[in-house]
């Protein structure tokens, strides 16, 4: 125990560079290079086309439906995230698209959240989207509300909103925890169309069962790129795909290496361990 402390202290107190993070640094640099390449290399950027994601078509339909029924659209980013989280950022992108649509159709957009910082950013995003689509006067700041930072205070509040406002469409996009099914089932009881998407793997199971469309994990990030329509944002989806091919190659070779090592009984070293 004591010698451990000495070693750790030695690492902590001396050099500027922590050698144990070397592999992460190398992979980070490679990944950053790939993203920068796909973003700034015009040719590869313009060629790229993203495949269709089922949930995305539904977004427009959902807003259309709300307009026809003259009922609001409810959008909430879940209780689990804060503004620093990449899922929240991805959700903001989709929100910006949805807000432009609801502005154009003159449909009310309600956005309850548990985090005051998310609230301020969402107000900004929605307001600007309304201005962008030419209807700044349709924006109502009180529709973007802070409800409560407590998980089930938030769930109870959003549940109340769903039962009373009876939104025609509900977007559950962001980081969700246990409140996911409370919201999704309440949404179901008023027959709303529900589009969900999250990186919280557990809640995905509930969304798949209870919602009409679910963006699974990474699809949420891809969708945010797709809907923003921004080429340089889409380029990072391409970057992710390139990395996935590299990962597949890496995994296959490592598995073959390890299998050969097991069969031959000669250990080849674990070079794939990070």
């Amino acid at each position, binding site marked *: 125990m004591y010698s451990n402390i000495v070693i750790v202290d030695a690492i902590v107190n001396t050099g500027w560079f922590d050698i144990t993070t070397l592999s992460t640094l190398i992979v*980070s640099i490679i990944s950053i290079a790939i993203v920068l390449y796909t973003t700034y290399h015009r040719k590869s950027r313009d060629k790229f086309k993203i495949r269709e994601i089922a949930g995305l078509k539904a977004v427009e339909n959902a807003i259309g439906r709300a307009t026809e029924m003259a009922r609001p659209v409810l959008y909430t980013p879940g209780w689990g995230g804060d*503004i620093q989280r990449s899922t929240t950022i991805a959700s903001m992108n989709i929100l910006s698209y949805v807000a432009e649509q609801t502005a154009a159709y003159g449909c009310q957009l309600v956005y309850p959240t548990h985090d005051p910082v998310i609230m301020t950013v969402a107000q900004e995003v929605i307001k600007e989207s309304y201005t962008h689509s030419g209807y700044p006067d349709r924006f109502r700041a009180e529709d973007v509300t802070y409800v*409560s930072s407590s998980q089930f205070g938030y769930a109870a509040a959003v549940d*109340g909103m769903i039962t009373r406002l009876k939104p025609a469409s509900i977007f559950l996009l962001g980081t969700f925890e246990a409140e996911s099914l409370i919201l999704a089932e309440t949404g179901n009881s008023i027959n709303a169309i529900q589009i969900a998407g999250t990186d919280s793997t557990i809640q995905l199971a*509930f969304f798949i069962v209870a919602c009409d469309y679910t963006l699974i994990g990474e*699809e949420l990030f891809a969708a945010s790129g797709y809907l923003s329509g921004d080429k340089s944002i889409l380029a990072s989806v391409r970057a*992710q795909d390139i990395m996935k091919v590299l990962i597949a190659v890496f995994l296959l070779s490592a598995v*073959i290496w*390890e299998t050969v090592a*097991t069969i031959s009984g000669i250990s080849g070293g674990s070079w794939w361990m990070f």
Partner: protein
Amino acid sequence: MDIGTLIAGVLTLAILSFLYRDNPFYKFAESLLIGVSIGYILVITFNNTLMALLFEPLFKESDLWLIIPLLLGLLMWGRFHKKTAFLSRISIAVMIGSGAGVAIPAMLKERTLKQMSNTVVSLVNASGMPDFTGIIVILGVISYFYFSREQKGALGKIAKVGTYFLMIFFGTTFGYTVMSRMSTFIGRMEFLLSDFLKLIH
């Protein structure tokens, strides 16, 4: 019965009444819950963050570095006025930027690299039995999340296998979560039946 248990019991029933439909009891409980929980977070944040992290070290120990976060916090209040509202973007930029900076290496290491390393196992395990699950699943699911091409042909087939495995995962999770949710309700029932109604001991 003490007054606390009585209140807790009545409020518990009020919330449960939502299962029938929205009603005045639920509305009352909901409003109270929202109000009280916001009050709670205000007190706790004031105590644990503003006092402990900012005011005490700044004013008692004169830790002048803390003027920076104090200013960043005050910039958020720029939003009270239209003309100064843009100032809050600087504080938000600090949060979003630094959050992104932390996330890149941390997510890469813990989510991607570690999980990759752990997928690598020999196709023949120690007892000589073949073991393909790990690799098939990972390749299948990764190809499901491959966005550059339509899911047709070979890619489509692999992606389909991926979908099946995703469904197994979702099913398993659902199964386990049913357990958890039932436990929570059982716990509430235990409170109602023993502490509140005194039907069981």
